[in-house]
């Protein structure tokens, strides 16, 4: 391959990568990350757990908020909280950043709204600490991963 060809291919690859990153649903720096899935709650719940696993995380537990509320006599639609994380990463981070222990494992709330399902979580950027580049890298990855999980769910509609 000639040198101009190499330059051309490299340029095109970079441009397409940039377009690919920019075009589909440009993730903005919102404080909450939230989507509406047109799947029913059981379908969305299964999809969410699958998407979390596919993104390289372990689902550690599902908190059935609606069950506790219903047992206490309150009316509610389906409402769950899904906890997840990377085992080694959580061990490492809680040792290095003890204050994060209150926020780990990560979690996503999922609740029914009629025939739709709402999936919502806080943008991990709210955990950032000024001047800590290492932690920022982790937080940025969490944000991207959660965005990927939510995109997968949206695409499944």
């Amino acid at each position, binding site marked *: 391959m000639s040198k101009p060809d190499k330059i051309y291919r490299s340029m095109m690859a970079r441009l397409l990568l940039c377009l690919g990153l920019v075009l589909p649903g440009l993730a903005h720096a919102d404080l909450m990350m939230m989507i509406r899935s047109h799947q029913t709650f059981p379908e969305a719940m299964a999809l969410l757990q699958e998407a979390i696993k596919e993104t390289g995380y372990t689902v*550690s537990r599902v908190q059935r908020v609606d069950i506790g509320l219903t047992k206490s006599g309150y009316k509610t639609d389906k409402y769950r909280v899904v906890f997840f994380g990377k085992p080694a990463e959580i061990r490492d981070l809680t040792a290095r950043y003890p204050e994060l222990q209150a926020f780990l494992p990560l979690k996503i709330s999922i609740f029914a709204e009629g025939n739709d399902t709402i999936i919502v979580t806080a943008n991990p950027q709210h955990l950032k600490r000024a001047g800590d580049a290492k932690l920022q890298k982790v937080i940025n990855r969490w944000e991207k991963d959660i965005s990927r999980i939510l995109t997968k769910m949206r695409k499944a509609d």
Partner: protein
Amino acid sequence: MQLRFVLPLFLLWSVCQAAPDGEALYEQHCAACHGSEGLGGVGVPLALPAFQQSVDDDFLHKTIRLGRPGRVMPGFRFLKDQEIDAIVQHLRGFVPGKRAAFSRQPVKGNAAHGKALYAKYCAACHGAKGEGGKGTGVTFSRPRDLPIIAPAINNSGFLASAGDAMIKEALMQGREGTPMISFLKQGMTEQDINDVVAYVRSFEKQPPDEKPIEFEKEPLTLVYDSPHSFEQTVEKVKQAAVGMNFRIIRVQTLEDGLQAKGEENSKQVIVYFCNFQLLNQALAVDPRVGLFLPCRVTVVERAGKVQLYAINPKRLSVLFNNNELNKLCTGMYDTYVTILEEASL
């Protein structure tokens, strides 16, 4: 050869020139709360004919841009004007038909007289100071048959978005299918209505009742040292939570479900607790509060030192843009502090 270099530039140019896709933007930024068809949810319904027919495009554009500070709806300051216009065009498609257009000229009226009329006719729904109805859209917060929540007409986002003529029209005609009735039909004269509009506009000059929580000044986490052993501290957390009317729902290691049994760090334990009445109240205020759930204190022993960790609800509440939730979170902050203090006493 030159074409090869022109092609990428053309691609880039064509992307930049492409008209924004209102439907895609709406789906991305609005549908989670307002529903794909505009039927509402966490957010208010937008597909209500009476609403669509009584607001102009400028009101919708400014509402998207500025949001409603403290009333859940965020301001989309990062969107370009053309993108907001595209969203407005898309949501106009929910109710095709004639669109309202209003003058931006101020309405002249006697605000003092308007204040008395407001107290008599408007305060019951919109609040004594225009603070609006409680709760968010239609989920959890109220029965689904109620089509719309009384807006906070003292909200800076509302006042900047709604012109006097638009407010006047709502008072004159009401909004069919909502509790907002025509006040002309209730016996008010046009001048009375002008006076009410003048009073509503005067909210702009009144300082807000509540001081907003300053996110940056609040610590991320509440941390307490415990003078007790690890096991004693866990027990004391449980007792303190029960003493504050919470039910212990689970005690587990932080690594439960992540590490194999026996390989978890047994000196890093989460005590989960819940007060379902409080939870139900919080969900009514904002259905997104799963972020706080369940309440928890993490007890950790490292190098012989036992510490307690909890989230700071005041700091987290800022993420929700919901003043009503702020009040609950301030109460929850006090509760957490009491539990942590008692457990570490």
